[in-house]
């Protein structure tokens, strides 16, 4: 792999950029592989990368029905944080955050990981109790975070409205300075380039249509390009996980829902952090291009259409205008939707299955992007050793039978 640098940029400029190396080969699929990763999104590409890099398993193919990084990787609002409540989740997301902090150098590809901090706002007394509880847990887990006052919030995000007179005044927030955003496409491309350089085959525009099994173990996958053999099949297909699981006669405790987002027209820098509010349902950050990147809540119904309902967008922008009254005159440039696979406890499934050599990594719901490096890291380890990585053990699908759920929905609204 030819290294990227200011120098390589300069030398390529001299030759009118006509001699850049292809970012990845586009090989014809081999007849069989040690591992086939189904799904060429960020998590799948990261899985392939760490299989090759950490475990030396290089006879690997990533099979993607569309183009690499074209699913939720291309559709999310790129927020990165690790301030989760429960130990199991917090440790997983914190591993991700640590990997993010060195990812551009690891991949020699600038993923523009921008640690401008994340605010999670509280609007009522129970919000604040939950924030205290979460931040204390984070601190004792070695994760940065503090509870901040409205005045401090105003310093961090000067255009925010901390007036006590509005319908749901801001009472405080949790603040994780190490959180931030990254350039989503670059993450997929960087992992793909890195994996390709280690010998992983990127098979695009090829759809897996079946999972061939024998005596309870996988033999490979049927695809639109024919059968491809594999000793192990690792499925990382997010919203389509239920569909792929069905190919192996499995059901999952996931439901696929539309999740919508939107961007404004680009404006000069006016928001230098990520602001999230669960209570009023909206989150916003500003990209390096200047767009306000805004995320909505999950739509109420199952849907694979990569479209949601407009009233969800309306509600989200009401929340944004509540938090930032000055943004009311800014305009929405583009809106879109993704398909998120939601679990009952809002935590992922990283798991072996009842089928030998078949593994699933799914159920990330609305929170997958931030976990990309750790998801790939622990899943690669689980696949390589056919045994859950210590940080993945708690996310076995069996928890839905034993009842050992990890409820990251946070505390329910206070009663009485």
């Amino acid at each position, binding site marked *: 792999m030819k290294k990227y640098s200011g120098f390589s940029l300069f030398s390529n400029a001299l030759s009118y950029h006509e001699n850049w190396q292809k970012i990845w080969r586009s090989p014809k699929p081999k007849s069989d592989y040690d591992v086939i990763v189904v799904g060429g999104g960020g998590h799948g590409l990261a899985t392939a990368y760490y299989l090759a890099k950490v475990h030396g398993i290089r006879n690997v193919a990533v099979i993607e029905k569309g183009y690499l990084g074209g699913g939720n990787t291309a559709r999310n609002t790129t927020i990165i944080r690790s301030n989760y409540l429960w130990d199991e989740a917090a440790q997983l997301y914190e591993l991700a955050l640590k990997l993010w902090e060195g990812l551009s150098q690891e991949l020699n590809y600038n993923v523009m990981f921008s640690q401008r901090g994340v605010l999670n706002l509280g609007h009522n007394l129970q919000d604040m109790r939950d924030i205290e509880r979460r931040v204390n847990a984070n601190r004792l887990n070695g994760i940065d975070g503090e509870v901040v006052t409205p005045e401090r919030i105003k310093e961090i995000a000067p255009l925010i409205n901390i007036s006590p007179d509005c319908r749901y005044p801001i009472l405080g927030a949790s603040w994780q300075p190490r959180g931030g955003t990254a350039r989503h496409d670059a993450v997929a491309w960087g992992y793909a380039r890195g994996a390709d350089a280690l010998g992983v085959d990127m098979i695009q525009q090829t759809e897996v249509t079946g999972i061939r099994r024998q005596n309870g173990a996988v033999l490979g996958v049927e695809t639109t390009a024919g059968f491809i053999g594999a000793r192990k099949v690792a499925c990382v297909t997010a919203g*389509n996980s*239920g*569909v792929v699981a*069905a190919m192996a006669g499995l*059901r*999952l*405790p*996931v*439901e*696929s829902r539309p999740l919508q987002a939107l961007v404004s027209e680009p404006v000069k820098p006016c928001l230098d952090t990520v602001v999230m509010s669960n209570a009023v349902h909206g989150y916003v950050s500003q990209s390096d291009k200047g767009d306000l990147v805004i995320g909505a809540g999950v739509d*109420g*119904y*199952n*849907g*694979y*259409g990569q*479209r949601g*309902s*407009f*009233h969800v967008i309306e509600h989200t922008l009401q929340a944004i205008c509540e938090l930032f009254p000055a943004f009311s005159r800014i305009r929405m440039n583009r809106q879109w939707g993704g398909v998120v696979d939601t679990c*009952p406890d809002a935590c992922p499934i990283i798991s072996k299955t009842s089928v030998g050599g078949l593994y699933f990594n799914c159920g990330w719901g609305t929170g997958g992007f931030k976990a990309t490096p750790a998801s790939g890291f622990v899943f690669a380890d689980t696949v390589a050793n056919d045994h859950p990585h210590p940080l993945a053990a708690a996310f076995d699908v069996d928890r*839905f*039978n*034993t*009842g050992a759920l990890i409820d990251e929905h946070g505390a329910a609204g206070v009663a009485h």
Partner: protein
Amino acid sequence: MLLIHCPHCREDREEEEFSYGGEAHIVRPLAPESLTDEAWGDYLFFRKNPRGIHHEMWYHGTGCRRYFYATRNTLTYAILETYCVGEKPLVSASIVSTAL
């Protein structure tokens, strides 16, 4: 943005009046205590979640307060029918696939 025909109000109504009730026709086991953890977990959490024809439940909360069923394509969002509790759907995945 869905427009849903309420079989009780006998009108097309806006999605904002309804809330989604999840997969339809999941029958609660008669003797839960006799089930294994797996069987009970399956009833609690595991769903068909199909990409295509889906029989699902809706609640007309801002309307007649009745639950009813809909057969909806989860890819195109087209609602093929709505029907009352106790009724059977006329459209099923197999019918549609053979129709294609």
